[in-house]
């Protein structure tokens, strides 16, 4: 992963006149990404799903007057119809509303957890590598140890400590999910810190934290973004795991994992309660993984064969 050239000046100061415009790493990557039809299609699917999850529940609430917890016991567990396109659940709640709301929870948690993981990982990896020597060995030894730990168990312990709130689930996931990013960033900084522009900065008397945050970290953004896009779907999956185990978002608020859990318990009688949340979850992960692959190919063409 050391083959990525540091972004040119144009990338660090976008919109800075037309001097070097059009030849930056980011511009090239964007061009390559747009040519990748699958990635573009996935991006559109993600945008549509996100928009639906954000706006959908609002539109339904104002038009038909029910939200994710409005019950209509006389209308319980009905198959899909024009009025309820995804059917209703056991308590007569509209499944479409619940799936959209659940999708909103999944996307939020996935995105925020990935941000937390990327931030911790980047800073940790950069500091470790720049400090070097004993500090570096100790910090990386700690990563090795955490890598060997049963990840899901740690998340479960953290969730039980922090309490079962939506806000803290993403913190727990992010707090445990930064290891890969830390390793990648460290590898990048290892080669970057020997380069002339860092030596120049140091000889000018730039303080260490400025070198790390101003000069080293911006130059590792490529691989970090690639890891980030592939972390989002994996965090969404982890959140669904937790909700499936009853540790995530608490009823009556839905999340995709919790909906799938309900659906799996009654799939023989009410097939739609599993089919729709399951399909939305799979499509979402599918699109995110495709887009992540596309971003990787675009930012690091060597990876593609």
């Amino acid at each position, binding site marked *: 992963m050391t083959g990525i050239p540091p972004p040119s000046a144009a990338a660090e100061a976008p919109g800075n006149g037309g001097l070097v415009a059009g030849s930056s790493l980011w511009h090239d990557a964007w061009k390559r990404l747009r040519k990748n039809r699958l990635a573009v299609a996935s991006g559109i699917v993600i945008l549509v799903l996100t928009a639906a999850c954000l706006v959908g529940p609002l539109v339904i609430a104002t038009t038909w007057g029910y939200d994710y917890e409005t019950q209509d016991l006389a209308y319980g567990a009905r198959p899909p119809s024009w009025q309820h396109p995804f059917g209703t659940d056991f308590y007569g709640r509209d499944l479409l509303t619940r799936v959209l709301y659940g999708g909103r929870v999944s996307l939020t948690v996935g995105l925020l957890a990935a941000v937390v993981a990327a931030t911790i990982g980047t800073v940790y990896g950069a500091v470790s590598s720049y400090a070097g020597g004993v500090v570096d060995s100790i910090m990386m030894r700690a990563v090795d140890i955490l*890598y*060997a*730990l*049963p*990840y*899901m168990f740690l998340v*479960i312990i953290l969730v039980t400590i922090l309490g079962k709130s939506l806000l803290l689930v993403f913190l727990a996931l992010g707090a445990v999910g930064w290891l890969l990013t830390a390793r990648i960033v460290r590898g990048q900084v290892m080669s970057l810190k020997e380069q002339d522009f860092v030596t120049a900065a140091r000889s000018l008397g730039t303080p260490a934290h400025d070198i790390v945050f101003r000069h080293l970290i911006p130059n590792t953004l490529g691989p970090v973004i690639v890891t980030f896009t592939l972390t989002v779907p994996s965090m969404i999956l982890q959140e669904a795991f937790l909700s499936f*185990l009853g540790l995530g978002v608490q009823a009556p608020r839905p999340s995709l994992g919790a909906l799938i859990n309900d*659906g799996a318990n009654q799939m023989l009688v009410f097939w739609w309660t599993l089919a729709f949340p399951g399909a939305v*979850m799979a499509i979402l992960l599918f699109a995110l993984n495709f887009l992540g692959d596309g971003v990787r190919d675009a930012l690091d063409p060597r990876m593609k064969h």
Partner: protein
Amino acid sequence: MRAYLIRRFMELIPTALIIVVGSFALVRLAPGSPFSSEKELPPEIRRQLDAKYGFDKPLPEQFARYLGNLLRGDLGPSTKYPQRSVNEIIADGFPISLTLAGVALVWSLLVGITAGIIGAVRQNTVWDHTAMAAALVGISIPSFVLGPLLVLLFALRLHLLPPAGWGDLQHVILPGITLGTIYAASIARLTRGGMLEVVRSDFIRTARAKGLSERLIIWRHMLRGGLLPVVSYLGPAIASMLTGSVVVEKIFNLPGIGPYFVDAAFNRDYFLVMGIVVLYAFFLLVLNLMVDVIYGLLDPRIEYS
């Protein structure tokens, strides 16, 4: 080689100690206690319970006692299941979880490596595209969606396998496939990528120049290179298979470790949580060491020193 193994094994000891200290701190510094989740207990009874399990002593003393018992192989009593020791609970559940992870591992390696070889050898053909599309679908389908679908098809429609519960090996086939598919997909992509990486390398050209048959080149030389990324992926993969079995055990109602762990974390069953985390961590440490050794055996460029 032997010196290397002994040295690596000795290095595990401080790591293991750090893990025990860390998980003890994490579990014990969490708010709440094993007796706080139930109804408010009368203070005398509370005191007696604390005294019975030694929770009235200062934490360092408790830790020393725990470590002493641990070295003798005694993981302590369970506060949630007072009539059973942690050792007994683990002896009941761990073999089931281990069998499940084993089946998942075999399934993921068989399917993943086969698909990866097909993809690499028939690069950019229909075979390749089909295999890689299937891999992407496999990565995107969460186990708790795949599991119910497999049950629906193979157990309830075709009556080939039991839908849930624990008895003999038949009962872990569907759970194993459910758990292993996502890893099979990753392994397929890694194998393909790894093999394509070595296709253009000098030793393959040498092999061709020697007049080796294409079959021998694929099996002897390309596969070896192709498996390197798979081997380094195996450590984290097996770790997450072992802990991911929590979800699959719930889907298929298997009496493994998973249900106990979630219960124990919630009820602050200190000894049971600690016991399970420590057992899994030690297991994974040894496993990662084995993976390192196998990696060295596959890659002749690595020297043991």
